[in-house]
């Protein structure tokens, strides 16, 4: 996917004044938030399950090498073929090789965020193979030539009217705005593709080491068709998605669907364990699993490892007041919101996404809902520390922090400077006691006044009062 994270600030500027996006984000507003809050009341030991889920993810990550090898062994034993992709380019190369060696002309895809990392669709098209997204949201975005803006609701930034216009224009059908009718229209468009495609690509929510299964958790049913109808099924997923056992999955799934869409369980939970076996009525002839590293293993053994616990529910972005205002595209890569602010700099390089770890008030709303207890604000702070240490932040920012530290550690100098400062600012505040403009603090005063200080410092007044 094309990276624009380095221009986060200008992305934000555009998004904040995009009336359509703003309206759509407000409409979407708290729907997932409310649904999550409501459904979590069913779980009487939520905190215990969160602790257990985090421990399961930590155990998987602490022994990632052996669980991955165990997964590979089991998957091979059940007839799957396992491919290891070290980089995003490797993903595209491996996939195209599988497709070309099997004479594949058409691919149907169910949702895979990992395939967005490598820009798979473009690479496949360039190799002369047609790739059709079949998740409704992804299908809409493919028609609109846009990337997803949310990891589980990719077209959340689009309104019904926009979808109606896209469908009518692309399907050459009369414009309609009835949602069930639009769904039917998409289904009618997609069905022939499901039946004629030679290859299906899906993501994988989890990999089960003890059985060699790929688990996908979906709502739309396209995932079932993509993974069973075409001759070849390819799973593309990150190496961190492995869970030791099915029991572990049973714990995690209780939190995944509730945290994501606020559902007790999704419509489909599929365990894909190898290709069609003798006597099976359906299933693909070939099952391939591409395990993607692409920066993940770099986080292992570092303080950033906890980010790999992520089970991609999207709760952090749903609850993030920054995301709610700017939408997912502003983050400029595959993963938006708080987890994106951590994963993007980690995967594409801090200097290419310098503002993302800063794009948070550290309000903590994400951390309290994260089902696997990722300390998201803490990880953003770690990335801020790296930026500071590596001298990547603007010089005036680094200088002012050092100055503040130096002055605040010299109480007499600090007293002198603050006493002078507040007097000047108080005078500048005038009768209304407001500062409309402050040089160097335009970031504040462009949109807000700065209430002026009272005029003397507390410590000054306190000392006088005592004497």
């Amino acid at each position, binding site marked *: 996917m094309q990276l624009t994270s380095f221009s986060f600030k200008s992305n*934000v500027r555009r998004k904040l004044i995009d009336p359509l996006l703003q309206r759509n984000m407000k409409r979407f507003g708290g729907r997932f938030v409310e649904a999550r809050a409501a459904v979590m009341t069913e779980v009487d030991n939520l905190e215990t399950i969160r602790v257990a889920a985090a421990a399961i993810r930590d155990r998987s990550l602490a022994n990632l090498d052996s669980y991955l090898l165990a997964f590979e062994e089991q998957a091979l034993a059940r007839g799957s073929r396992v491919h290891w992709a070290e980089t995003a380019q490797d993903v595209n190369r491996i996939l195209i090789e599988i497709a070309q060696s099997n004479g594949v002309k058409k691919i149907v895809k169910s949702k895979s965020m990992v395939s967005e990392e490598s820009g798979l669709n473009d690479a496949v098209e360039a190799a002369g193979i047609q790739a059709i997204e079949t998740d409704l949201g992804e299908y809409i975005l493919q028609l609109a030539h846009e990337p997803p803006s949310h990891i589980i609701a990719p077209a959340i930034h689009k309104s019904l009217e926009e979808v109606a216009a896209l469908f009518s224009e692309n399907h050459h059908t009369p414009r309609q705005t009835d949602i069930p009718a639009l769904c039917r229209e998409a289904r009618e468009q997609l069905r022939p593709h499901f039946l004629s495609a030679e290859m299906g690509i899906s993501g994988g929510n989890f990999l089960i080491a003890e059985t060699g299964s790929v688990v996908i958790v979906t709502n739309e049913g396209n995932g079932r068709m993509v993974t069973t109808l075409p001759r070849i099924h390819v799973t593309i997923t990150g190496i961190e998605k492995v869970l030791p056992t099915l029991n572990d999955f049973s714990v995690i799934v209780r939190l995944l669907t509730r945290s994501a869409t606020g559902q007790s369980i999704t419509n489909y939970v599929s365990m894909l364990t190898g290709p069609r076996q003798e006597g099976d009525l359906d299933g693909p002839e070939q099952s391939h699993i591409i395990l993607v590293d692409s920066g993940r293993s770099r986080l292992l053994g570092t303080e950033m490892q906890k980010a790999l616990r992520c089970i991609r529910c999207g709760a952090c972005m749903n609850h993030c*007041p920054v995301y709610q205002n700017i939408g997912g595209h502003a983050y400029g890569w595959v993963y938006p919101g708080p987890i994106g602010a951590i994963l993007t700099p980690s995967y594409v390089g801090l200097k290419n996404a310098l503002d993302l770890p800063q794009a948070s008030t550290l309000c903590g*709303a994400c951390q309290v809902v994260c089902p696997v207890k990722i300390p998201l604000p803490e990880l953003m702070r770690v990335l801020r520390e790296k930026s500071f240490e590596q001298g990547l932040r603007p010089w005036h920012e680094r200088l002012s*922090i050092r100055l503040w*530290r130096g002055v605040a550690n010299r*109480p007499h100098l600090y007293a002198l400077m603050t006493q002078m400062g507040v007097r000047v600012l108080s005078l500048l505040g005038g009768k209304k006691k407001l500062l409309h403009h402050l040089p160097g603090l*335009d970031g504040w005063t462009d*949109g807000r*006044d700065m209430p002026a200080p009272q005029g003397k410092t507390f410590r000054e007044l*306190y000392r006088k009062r005592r004497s």
Partner: protein
Amino acid sequence: MRVGLFVTCLVDMMRPRIGFATLKLLENAGCEVAVPPNQTCCGQPGFNSGDRESGRVMARRFLADFESFDYVVAPSGSCTGMIRSHYGELFPDDTALQHRLNALSQRTFELTDFLVTVLKVERLDSSFQGTITYHDSCSGLRELNVKHQPRQLMEQVTGAQLHEMSKPELCCGFGGTFSIKLGEIATRMADNKCQDALATKADAIVGGDLGCLLNIEGRLRRLGDDTTQVLHVAEVLAGPELGQV
């Protein structure tokens, strides 16, 4: 009980009257309060900007200024959160220092939390004419569980009526240096907070952190609202009589 007042850099510079309100509340509740004269800042602006050294320097200063007190109280959830959640992890190689900082941070409280949880204040001799809407600032709420404490105390203020916002727990967009680095997002978030607060038709927006209050007031005034008061909870609880400030 000897209490050290950590007045915080923002209150010290911008709104001394909040410091005096805090002092009055603590003294009325029977505390012997002192204000160590060398205190400055908790170190959060630098710490959250990625300069861990800011945290370490200010943690040492805090220890020197406040270790001798039974309790430390600050009229801020954010600075208290910094002390309680982060001071204890700044010196992993110096267990003795770490231990002292941990012990001190356990005795450090946000003002309303201290009044309710430690002092068990059940009666305030104070009045406020008008309706109030309360903004739960993030650090207080999520790091210190400050939620019922300010509300419980405001119930004791004669005349004060609480009208809750639809989203009192939603961040106002301050976030320390975030409010300057990413000012446009901060302004939008402040705007959302102002609209939510104005919809309650409250006479005053009240909160426990001056950073948030400056952000909210700054946006309100820029929008042309000169009448809605923006007050620190200490000012409401201490009442209008604050002496010479």
